[in-house]
Structure formats: C-alpha cells, structure tokens
C-alpha cells in the first residue's frame, strides 16, 4: 500500500496506481488561520482508480477534491478550525477490494465515514460498518433497492433507489411517448452485468409490463467489452422500438455505434449515469436523434450547476460526470452534518444530523431531499432527450 499526501489547493493533478493506493489530501489552512490550532478529520473514499471503472472513479474523486477545496477555506466545527482530509483507496470497482478498502480506511486512516460511488462497494461495507468497536458511516451511490432493506443505522444512499423512482419514471416515459407520438411499444434491454444494472432492469421491466407494454429481449453485457454484436444481433431481430442501456456514456456509445452498424433504426434510452450532452460528444447527432435519458436536475441549466461545471472544467480540464456531483455533494453534506452535530468523529451523531442539514445543502446539484430512516433520499428524475443535436428536457407529466 502506498500513501501520499497532497495539498488540496495546489493539487489537482491525478495520482493513480493500479495497486491499492491511499492518497490523503489535506486542505490549505495556511497563514490565514493564524494562531488557531487545527483539528483534522479524515473522510475515507473507496473508489476505482484503475481497471475498467477508473474513469468513473476519478470523476467521483475529482468532485470530492473540488468540495474539499471549497470547504477548507471556511470550515469550523464547534468553533474550532478543522482541517478536512480525504484518504483514498483504489477498490478497482470490485466488491472484495472495496471491502478491504473500507477496513483499511477505518483501521489505518482513522476514517469514521467512508463514501463510495456504487453498489459494488456499498453492499460489502454494510456487512460490518455497525461493529461497535469500529463503526463507521457509509455514504454509497447505490441504486440497488436491497441496500436499504437491511435496517442499517449508519448508512445514507446517495443515488436514487430504483424501486422508488421507477414507477414515476415509467409514468413520465409513457407521457413522453403519448405527447410526442414516439411510438415506443416494444423494448429490448441491454443489462450491464452489475448489481445496479440488474436492479434497474428488473424494476423497469416490471413497471413497463405492468402497463401492458412488451419487453422483446434482454441481454447481459460487460461494460469493459469491445464487441456487442453477439448481444445486439438477436435483440435487433425482435425489431424493438427502443433499446435500454444501463451504464455510463462511453460503453453505451459503443453499443449504439455497433447497433447502427447492424442497421438498427429505432432509438435508445440510457439510465441516469449519462447525459445527452455527454453522448453528443461521443457520437454524431444523427445516431442518437430521439435518444432518451433518465435525468436528474443535473441536466438542467441552473446557474449553480453551470458554475459547478465551469469550476470543475477549470480544475481538471475535463467535463464533470453526474458521479462528480455526487462526490461533491457527499462531502458538502457531511461537513454540514458535522457542524450541526458538533462532532467530527461520532458516526451516529453525524448520521442523526444529516436529515436536518439536507435543506442547507448548497448548491444542491442533484435536487436531493428528504432523507428517511432507511437511508433513502428523494432524487427527482425526469426525461431528457436529444433532438436535432440539442439536449432538451421533457416537461410534461
């Protein structure tokens, strides 16, 4: 294991390793803090920095870096200046590695809170985060309904619970279908082989069929794959009006490109991990004309979202992903909860303070609201679509 420390205000460069890596970024207190002594608090981050999820994990970490940079200029808890540190462990997008990361972050780096960007890391952490001698709070960006069925008192979900959001989302999709005469009846499903992919697809299938619509095929694929002809050929043979994709933009764009090579003329829909503007940078507009996206407020052009995007782009020379906003909000929210709890180390107290501080989350890039006892948050979803090379939001119900 390798450790490195980095001044957050100076350090925006990525340090990456395929070995398990722990990086600690400490905030710049500098001369401005004067004679005040600074306590420090370490938040653990389990995220992929190598392997197929490296791009996704880096986007999550960059959001966290931006939050730390913003917060370390102003942070105080209980009247004392606090230095915020982030310890990062490369989990390679694998559950077993993520379990080890969580243990390391807690036992070696002293983290009382571990944040992660997916179900693969959330599920193993919840099996031991309530152990009395080493309890820690988990913030996991998991859409899998199963994670909030465990009655875990030290967990907050930072992604939409697909069981809760899917009925409303399918209603909106049907409204879109009706109002635009899109003619979507037969749907084929391309399910990425992850817990999240399976949960999203199962819930979508259930809701879609509940409305008397047809699912004409379901294929599973690896998002690190290169060739999807084997999955697409039989799906396209069923003549679907819509193919649903369940992963981030880059692998989805590859599936779309290959489907067009196989002369598929219908449209596509992607779940919330990808936006129309991102997809337009990867494919020609004609290939995705009419493509639908499950969207968070993230896709709207609110001033605070535009500001975040601009600052992110300036810091990292790349566009943010939705998971960057999740990383950013995780840290801002946690710090507000620490301030309210007047504690940086009591995981239970910080968790208890989180519902009350959600309203103070600024900027609330994803429109999060109403954290409940199970750990679920409300995450408003709508549909956006690409038309003539422009991403538009569907405003009907």
């Amino acid at each position, binding site marked *: 294991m390798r450790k490195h420390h980095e001044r957050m205000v100076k350090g925006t460069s990525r340090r990456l390793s395929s070995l398990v890596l722990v990086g600690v970024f400490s905030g710049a207190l500098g001369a401005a803090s004067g004679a005040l002594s600074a306590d420090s608090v370490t938040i653990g981050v389990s995220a992929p920095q190598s*392997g197929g999820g490296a*791009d996704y994990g880096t986007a999550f970490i960059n959001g966290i870096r931006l939050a730390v940079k913003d917060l370390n200029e102003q942070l105080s808890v209980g009247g004392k200046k606090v230095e915020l540190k982030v310890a990062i462990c490369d989990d390679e997008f694998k559950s077993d590695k993520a379990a080890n990361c969580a243990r390391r972050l807690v036992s070696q780096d002293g983290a009382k809170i571990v944040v992660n960007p997916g179900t693969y890391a959330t599920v193993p952490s919840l099996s031991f985060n309530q152990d009395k001698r080493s309890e820690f709070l988990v913030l996991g960006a998991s859409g899998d309904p199963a994670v909030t069925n465990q009655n875990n008192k030290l967990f907050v979900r930072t992604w939409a619970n697909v069981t809760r959001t899917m009925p409303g989302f399918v209603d909106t999709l049907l409204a879109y279908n009706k109002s635009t005469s899109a003619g979507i009846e037969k749907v084929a499903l391309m399910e990425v082989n992850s817990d999240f992919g399976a949960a999203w697809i199962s819930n979508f299938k259930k809701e879609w069929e509940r409305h008397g619509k047809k699912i004409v095929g379901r294929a599973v*694929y690896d998002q690190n794959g290169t060739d999807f002809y*084997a999955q697409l050929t039989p799906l396209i043979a069923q003549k679907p009006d819509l193919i649903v994709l369940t992963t981030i933009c880059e692998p989805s764009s590859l599936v779309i490109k290959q489907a067009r090579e*196989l002369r598929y003329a219908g449209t596509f829909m992607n779940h919330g991990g990808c936006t129309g503007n991102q997809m337009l940078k990867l494919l020609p507009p004609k290939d995705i004309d009419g493509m639908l996206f499950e969207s968070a407020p993230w896709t709207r052009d609110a001033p605070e979202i535009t500001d975040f995007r601009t600052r992110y782009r300036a810091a990292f020379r790349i566009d943010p992903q939705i998971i960057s906003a999740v990383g950013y909000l995780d840290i801002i929210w946690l710090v507000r909860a620490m301030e309210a709890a007047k504690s940086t180390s009591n995981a239970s107290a910080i968790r208890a303070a989180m519902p009350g501080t959600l309203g103070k989350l600024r900027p609330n890039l994803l429109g999060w609201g109403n954290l409940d006892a199970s750990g679920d948050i409300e995450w408003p979803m709508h549909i956006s679509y690409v038309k003539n090379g422009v991403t538009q939001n569907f405003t009907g119900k």
Partner: protein
Amino acid sequence: MSAVLAQGLANGIMLGSLYGLIAVGLALIFGVLGIPQFALGAHAMLGAYVVYVFTVSLGVNYWLALVAAAAALALLGLLVHALVFRPMSTGPGINMFIAAFGVLLMLQSIAILVFGTRYYRVPSPIEGSLSIFNIFVTPQRLMVIVVALLLIAGLHLFIMRTRTGAFIRAVADNPRGAAVVGIDVRKVGLTTMAIGSALAGIAGGLIAPIGQVYPAMGDLLIIKAFIVVVLAGMGSIYGAILAGYALGLAESLGGMYVSLAYQDAMAFVLLLAVLLVRPQGLFGRRANEGLT
C-alpha cells in the same frame, strides 16, 4: 440459413479471429518459454494507444500505425523478457505467474499516468458498414479477420520454414538439448517474446477502431485468450487458432440460441466441459512433445 444465424456466424468468426490472434501469442510464449504471459492483454492495450497516437495525434496512415504498434510492442516484449522474465527463469514457476501479473499492473498504471482514465476513439480507415447476403459487417471487422488469418499463416511459415523457426521448435521440444547443439536459447526466448508481444500489439491496434481505447481494454481479451489456450491445450499454437474460433462461435451462437443473459458464461461452460473430458485440452501436448 436464416439471416440471424448467418449474422451470428459472421460475429463469431470476427470474435474468434481476435481471440485466436492473442491466444497464439500466449500459446507460443508458454510453449517455448513456459511463461503464462497474462500481460499480453496490457500489450494489446498499449498497441491500441500506439495506433491512437500515430493516427489521431500525428495523422499517420492507419496501416503504418499498425506496423509501428507491432514494432513498439516487439521492443517492449524484448525489454520485459530481458528485465523481468529472464532473471527469474531459474526460480520456481510461480514466480513467472506473479511477474506476469506485475507487468500487467505496471503497464496499466503507466497507461493511466500517461493517458489518464478517459476513453479514446480511433477512427476506422474505412467507415460505414456493408451488407453481404443480409449479413452486416464493417470493413474494419473484415480487416480483423483477414489480417488475423494472414498473420497466423505467416507465423506458421516462419516457424516451419525458417532457420529461426526451427530453433524455436527445438527450444520448445527440449531447451537443454537445443543449447547442447549450439542454439542460443536466450536469443530464441527474446525472439519468441517479441513475436508474441507484437501479435498482441497488432490485435490491440486492430480492435481500437471497433471499440474504445482505455487502460483496462485488454483485461477481458486476455481472460478470453487464456481460456482459448487452456481449451486448446497449453502451448498448442495451432490448437489455439481453432479454439479461438470455437470460443468466438460458442459465444455468438450460444448467446443467440441458449441464453443472452449468460452469453459471457459460455466461455467458462465450454472450458469446464472440455477440461472434464480432456484435461490436457483439445490439442494439448503430453510432456516433452514440443509445439503442436
């Protein structure tokens, strides 16, 4: 024949060509040197990056970029053998296994440091897709099949008809005996590693316009290539070619006619079935039988 079945066969042949190309390199290196060179997946990834840099950044012709990828990866193969595998050749066999994984991780880390984690696109030299008897295929996919077959045929001629090829066969048969009759075993080892690495680099360059270029792009490929080599029998380069096509077709047709949900599991089902019936693989050699 239905159009879907014909398309499935075409898909399987393209996949099989790619698996075969990397698996041949893996089988050659294992057959001659006894090294399970899992890092060939990372070699394929670096080959794709070389093609990206030459075609997109420098504006060089795709075919020249492919030659550059082969040359760069052959050089890398020489370096890796001289600096990593050769010094470990006297230790226990497990060292080679661990070293190969170490090289894989190191090469991926270097790619992340140099190129970052983002995905890159390489434009195909001929865009679009063709319809041949209702089978849709892109020119790039046809190129993969043709280039793979040409390279495999070239490798066959090299091994069977040249003096260096004879040396490689001799070392694979009996390294000690080959050394006794004056063959430079060290040089044969370097040559073998360079060939295997170059083949992987070309495979990466061929697949770059079909997929996307990113640090982990070789991971799935090397897993499939390893399955191909075990299916064929460790060290059997001709078996690897056939097993590559068998796996490509099994994945393509199995996904269509058995279960799309378990398409990626077809490879493992096939592997288990073969190992249960013929533990040494379909074309596996018995001890000291040399390259087959």
